[in-house]
């Protein structure tokens, strides 16, 4: 039985929340502007609570089980973060209040700015971008602004490895760059020969994900950065995979010029069914003036007795504003609390155990699944979801069958350079028991693929709905509830 929609549950005349009657004298309403009909549902509070409670039971979530989704870093979301974000001083503060009344928020942002700079090895940072994709767009815009500021308008090409996340080329195109793909070599590193040939004075930069989407740390990363810098380009780092690098190495130290962080990946803020995220951007010293703003600075220095006065500051040659107000502040509170609970040394443990967990799974699965780039991985690894002796079964079928065993599938069909890719990232918050259970299940499914392939092809069998007709969805395009008259 599917859950009815709000409109199907609606009953004319019913209402949920009431408000007090007006306590002021009546003013004439603007007759010519009044709307005649407001097609919203009418439900009682219990209707609404039951409806959304039912809907929630149809979802898988981290709190229910493992999400081995490569490049998503589905780690446990600490509940203390939720308490912190809801503290009234934060929750009810208006961004346009006088600066003196917002010192708690600004101090938190200033501290988070410092911590992220320290973690990434950067000289400047903006917390304003709302998500990773927006952080990337900002990074690319900063690169363009930098070259333009030096009178260099000829650099119209952005180099992007063929393993990159789709947002990389999309962000580049949005900034007016021509995207030039760079191949990955057989060991899973950026192909140095190809890169060298592409370096020129028309090249604005390289967008590098390191560790890359194969879960591999580029064995020539310093050389890659040097080649790009030598011909006057800049290196953008996609920080989606930062979970492998916390306290292990700082991208800024490697020469990365600009990088975005994903607070909703590395720093434990919840995914919320698709957002909100937060994508702060860190930069090297020569790019500090170009950051989007405002960022938080010190408006008046403090002394032994008084703290400094923090407030908004616009970088000197800023690319401009990228979002209204200051950014996804609620996610910053969560990330701040998270970093506070790990401390400098604890952050390194995150990376160590994330990488340990991934290599453990790799060791358990490599005999049963083909691993195209078989070397020590970082926090994730990629395997192929096909066998030559089980031709009916594809990565998609394995994923759907996993759901019958109450696991969320890994990332499918990405990166594009691996055939029938399954990208697995366990994160550091999963125990050995969970990992063993997952590995045992994957091995079982590999057997089923050979002995009972139809079980996989028709999976999932045990979920609220089975495989859905996506062709019908795209052709008929029903995007709104049907509303009874």
């Amino acid at each position, binding site marked *: 039985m*599917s859950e009815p929609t709000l409109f199907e549950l609606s009953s004319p005349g*019913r209402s*949920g929340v009431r408000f007090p009657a*007006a306590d*002021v004298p009546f003013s004439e309403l*603007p007759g010519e*502007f009044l*709307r005649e009909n*407001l097609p919203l*549902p009418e439900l009682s509070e219990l209707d609404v*609570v039951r409806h*959304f409670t039912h*809907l*929630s039971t149809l*979802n*898988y*979530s*981290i709190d*229910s089980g493992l999400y081995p989704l490569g490049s998503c870093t589905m780690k446990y979301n*600490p509940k203390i973060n939720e308490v912190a974000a809801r503290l009234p*001083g*934060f929750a*009810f*503060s208006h961004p346009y209040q006088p600066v003196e009344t917002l010192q708690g*928020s600004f101090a938190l942002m200033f501290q988070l700015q410092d911590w992220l700079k320290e*973690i990434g090895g950067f000289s400047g940072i903006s917390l304003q971008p709302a998500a990773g*994709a927006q952080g990337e767009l900002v990074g690319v815009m900063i690169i363009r602004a930098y070259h333009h500021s030096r009178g260099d308008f000829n650099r119209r090409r952005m180099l992007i490895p063929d393993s990159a996340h*789709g*947002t990389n080329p999309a962000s580049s195109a*949005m900034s007016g760059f021509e995207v030039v793909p760079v191949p990955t070599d057989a060991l899973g590193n950026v192909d140095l020969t190809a890169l060298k040939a592409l370096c020129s004075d028309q090249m604005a930069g390289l967008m590098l994900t390191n560790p890359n989407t194969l879960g591999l740390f580029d064995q020539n990363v310093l050389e890659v950065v040097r080649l790009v810098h030598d011909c006057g380009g800049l290196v953008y780092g996609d920080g989606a995979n930062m979970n492998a690098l916390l306290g*292990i190495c700082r991208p800024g*130290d490697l020469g990365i010029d600009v990088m975005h962080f994903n607070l909703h990946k590395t720093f434990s803020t919840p*995914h*919320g069914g*698709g*957002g*909100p*995220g937060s994508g702060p951007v860190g930069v090297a010293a020569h790019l500090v003036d170009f950051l*989007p703003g405002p960022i938080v600075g010190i408006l008046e220095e403090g002394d032994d007795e008084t703290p400094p006065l923090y407030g908004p500051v616009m970088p000197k040659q800023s690319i*401009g*504003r990228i979002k*209204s107000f200051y950014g996804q*502040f609620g996610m910053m509170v969560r990330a701040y609390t998270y970093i*506070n609970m790990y*401390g*400098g040394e604890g*952050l390194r443990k995150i990376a160590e155990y994330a990488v340990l967990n991934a290599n453990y799974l790799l*060791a358990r699965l490599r005999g049963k699944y083909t691993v195209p780039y078989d070397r020590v991985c970082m926090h994730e690894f990629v395997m192929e979801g096909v066998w030559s002796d089980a031709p009916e079964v594809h990565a998609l079928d394995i994923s759907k069958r996993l759901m019958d065993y109450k696991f969320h599938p890994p990332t499918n069909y990405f990166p594009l350079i691996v055939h029938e890719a399954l990208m697995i990232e366990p994160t*550091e918050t*999963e125990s050995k028991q969970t990992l063993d259970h997952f590995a045992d299940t994957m091995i079982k499914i590999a057997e089923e693929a050979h002995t009972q392939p139809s079980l996989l092809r028709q999976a999932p069998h045990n*979920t609220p*709905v089975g495989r*859905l*007709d996506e062709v*019908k969805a*795209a052709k008929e*395009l*029903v995007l*709104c*509830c049907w509303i009874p008259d």
Partner: protein
Amino acid sequence: MFIPHTDAERKEMLQTIGIERIEDLFADVPAAFRFPELNIPPALTEMEALQDVQGLADANESARELACFLGAGAYNHYSPAAVDFLISRSEFSTAYTPYQPEVSQGTLQAIFEFQSLICGLTGMDASNASHYDGATATAEAGILAYHYFREKRSKFVLSHAVHPDYRGVLKTYMCGYEGVEVVGDEAELDPFSGPEHITSLIDKNTALVVVQYPDFLGRIYDYTPVAKAAHDNGALFCMVVNPTALGLLKPPSEFGADIVVGEGQPLGIPLSFGGPYLGFFATRKEFVRKIAGRLVGETVDSQGRRGYVLTLTAREQHIRRDKATSNICTNQGLIALAATIYLSLLGKQGLRQVAELCYQKAHYAADQISQVPGFKVCSSAPFFHEFVICCDQPVAEINEHLLEHNILGGLDLGAIYPSLKNHLLMAVTEMNSREQIDTLCEVLKEITHV
């Protein structure tokens, strides 16, 4: 800390992998840069971390204790208890993006309902699953228009009375597109001028015309002539709207809007120092395939059961890559859910009631403030819940005095429009009692006698 491994488990795992120590896993990291010492204080326990962050929160003042008359794109509305209660269910908050629909029907149906409610409010045919905020939604309207005309039209006419942050973000985003010019919000303009100025700028090279309803100065206009001018020239017409106002006022569809965007924060989202907020984006039917961002569609499974999926995904970045018209990946999932729950709880009657309360209280406040010597309402246009007051003293001084009486005064417009020194923008919502409004007026009276 949330890492569960025991020493024994770590040893077993290292053995299975076939290495001696965890450090060995990082051999590919250049030795000179490996294992830096981070200058970050030692770990706090949960209890200590809460005390620390509580201290910061306590250093803020907020609309909790202060009577809030500040709006300008972020409004102090009442959020019913059930909203936060329901979005705190971890099946919603710790769920991932619904790429595997069979185990994400909760999220998908909720987004589908969000899309439906936005269409109902705005009168449009299709809505996406949300953008980061009203400002980026406005920028995405610009990008849609740019690609719609295949880059052959380069002029964007933008009313000066659209929120300044939204105008800023639109311009930042359009920087990447060759030859684009954004006109209409020049600094020399009289901020109180109406939409006639906009109409005069529209021509056959115009891709998009953007206005706000009610506008940044709180005013309500009939935009039909602007829509007509846009359409007569083949341009697209976009309205930036306040969703609470739509509980009372004519929806943008009736003026001829092609695209409707706005900020969903007033729909039960706390002020939160400006984020996370909620951009919504809706269009008429013919632009559906041009919409950026996620779309949820209805379908059936192999057994004929109704279900929901992300659809038209071929437009998006993970498939189209550099040919995608936008790079957007996340929406504001949990915030869109909160707005959906808010609208469900209020419903047809509740939203109308809130809108009317805002209107009535704002008009009472405007009336009362006008009777205080030295203050008057400056615009004669009809308004919803925000209005401009011209004062005979600097706004900063007025607001300082108000703050001493635990009142958050309106926005100093002089910071945004150079000719509006000594003008402030006041907002009134259902959260402002008559008593608060009367006290505000009494304190203002004191100021003019100082």
